[in-house]
């Protein structure tokens, strides 16, 4: 199944992580890691339950601190996210976020923007696509380029492609490319190339296997990550992770809150589960990550239990049970 091949390739394996897992086996059971969980709105709470169930079945040593988006604006954050919620992520350094419907209105920051700014999240990884924040500066470009190459190295990827439109956006993308080249020199074992975004779109559609890790400014990041999402089957399957300074990471499902199917036990928890898997990788819990990811992919590939968006008729709970069964 072409979909599975792309998903597997894109989610990556743990080629370079054998050593760390063996070392861990000799120590006693690790103390549970605290992680912040924002179930979010709409289908958020249901799929968050799925994640908790799968993690429990896989015996992942994570203790969740749940936080919800309020219905009042917290003056300290100027957002519906409370100061306590943000502090929780800052303290735990790792979090998982479900879909949040930004309430319509003015006078407050969007939830995603709040999170990005307050937690200083500078890189967004959507299955190998690393994008940086809006204003292109030398510092930001270097930082995200470093992350991209580091990501490639630790995940056994061979190639980093910088996506740009420097033929038109000569100053901004020109600076971005310069920074990428500087970082590339420090990683001679990784192939570095530059691709104009127009070509990138076409090549992605024709032959996505041509690419490995992509790095680009934010303006193109949204477009490319949505394009990739479309290729693998939609936002319902897309995992994403926001990276900040000093190793802080907030994994999130980028799909919407789907209010029309909320509470009906119909939602597909795959995106949130796969995002949780990237969170596990960030925490270096590679074998747990692999087990859960394989269980998800095998369940989908088997075809017996699939939620409505994948063409099946299983409920969220049945799908989750099937995944636990595959662990």
């Amino acid at each position, binding site marked *: 199944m072409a979909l599975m091949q792309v998903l597997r390739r894109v989610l990556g394996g743990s080629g370079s992580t054998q050593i760390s897992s063996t070392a861990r086996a000799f120590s006693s059971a690790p103390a549970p890691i605290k992680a912040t969980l924002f179930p979010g709105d709409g289908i958020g709470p249901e799929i968050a339950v799925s994640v908790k169930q799968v993690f429990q079945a896989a015996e992942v040593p994570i203790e969740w601190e749940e936080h919800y988006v309020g219905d009042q604006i917290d003056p300290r954050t100027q957002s519906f996210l409370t100061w306590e919620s943000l502090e929780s992520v800052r303290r735990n350094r790792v979090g998982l976020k479900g879909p949040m419907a930004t309430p319509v209105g003015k006078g407050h920051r969007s939830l995603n923007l709040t999170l990005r700014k307050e937690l200083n999240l500078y890189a967004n990884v959507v299955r190998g696509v690393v994008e940086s924040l809006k204003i292109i500066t030398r510092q930001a470009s270097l930082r995200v380029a470093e992350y991209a190459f580091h990501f490639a190295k630790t995940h056994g990827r061979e190639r980093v492609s910088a996506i740009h439109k420097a*033929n*038109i956006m000569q100053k901004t993308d020109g600076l971005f490319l310069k920074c990428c080249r500087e970082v590339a020199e420090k990683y001679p074992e990784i192939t570095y190339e530059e691709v104009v975004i127009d070509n990138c*779109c*076409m090549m992605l*559609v024709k032959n996505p296997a041509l690419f490995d890790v992509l790095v680009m400014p934010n303006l193109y990041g*949204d477009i490319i990550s949505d*394009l990739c999402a479309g290729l693998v089957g939609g936002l319902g399957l897309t995992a994403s992770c926001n990276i900040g300074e000093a190793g802080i990471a907030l994994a999130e499902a980028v799909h919407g809150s789907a209010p029309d199917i909320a509470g009906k036990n119909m939602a597909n928890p795959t995106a949130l589960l796969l995002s949780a898997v990237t969170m596990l990788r960030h925490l270096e819990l590679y074998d747990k990550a692999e087990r859960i990811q394989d269980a998800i992919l095998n369940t989908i590939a088997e075809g017996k239990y699939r939620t409505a968006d994948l063409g099946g008729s299983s409920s969220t709970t049945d799908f989750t049970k099937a995944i636990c069964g595959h662990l």
Partner: protein
Amino acid sequence: MARRSFSLFKALTKTTTSFSLTPIPISRSVTYMPRPGDGIPRAVTLIPGDGIGPLVTNAVEQVMQAMHAPLYFEKYEVHGDMNRIPAEVIESIKKNKVCLKGGLRTPVGGGVSSLNVSLRKELDLYASLVITKFCSERIAKYAFEYAYLNNRKTVTAVHKANIMKLADGLFLESCREVAKKYPSIKYTEIIVDNCCMQLVSKPEQFDVMVTPNLYGNLVANTAAGIAGGTGVMPGGNVGADYAVFEQGASAGNVGKEKMVERKKANPVALLLSSAMMLRHLQFPSFADRLETAVKRVISEGKCRTKDLGGDSTTQEVVDAVIAHLD
């Protein structure tokens, strides 16, 4: 850029996936009533350009000659590393009103600004980098007029107004205003991120699309990728007074040396662009003949360049197209 390529490549994709060996029948229809003198050959400015440009423009020249099309080319040398387009070339285009262009290499980085862009600006081809009310209005008007004249059902505006609030907001406003004047045409809006995703999973939901230039190329390339690559995607840049026809999607192949050396570039995109040009010049039956011949060659599958999965040279494809002309 006035995007006229989508409908054409959609028709083409339908043909490429059918793989039938029976020849496509000619549908005879009365296409138009000429005025006396319409058959007099028209002059068209031809810019072969860089890389594969000369190869594919030569393909067009051969096919036009084989069809005895009522036009002749005035060829000019322009290269991507020139500082500007020579004045005589601009004059020629202004005189002839129509130009066919191979491709101009754009140097990456700073310094020389793209000649492709400056050509569009010089001829005021409805494409500009700065979104103004004037520019948005006229491109929106063109999109709806095109849809109206071609019996299309939907016009979709592709934008990123949630981020580029001022520029794209203005663009959308213009589109909405124009939409009111065409109540029989459905008007929708879509954010470019979602658009790419939808294009990849369900392209048939789109009909005519209108976008600011920044996303135009991107969407065109994505669409080209689905259709089979930039090697098959035609395009045209249209303005009030002049029109320039070239490949619809920027290939980056302009500089592919191996393709140039081995003469294996795909001429289909430029051939289809020249068919668009024939329609623009109001020679619809020549356009029909050319497109039919190209469709036959592709669906037969015997003569295909590398990007379509074959191993033919440019010349072989040209010969096949000429052989399939009625």
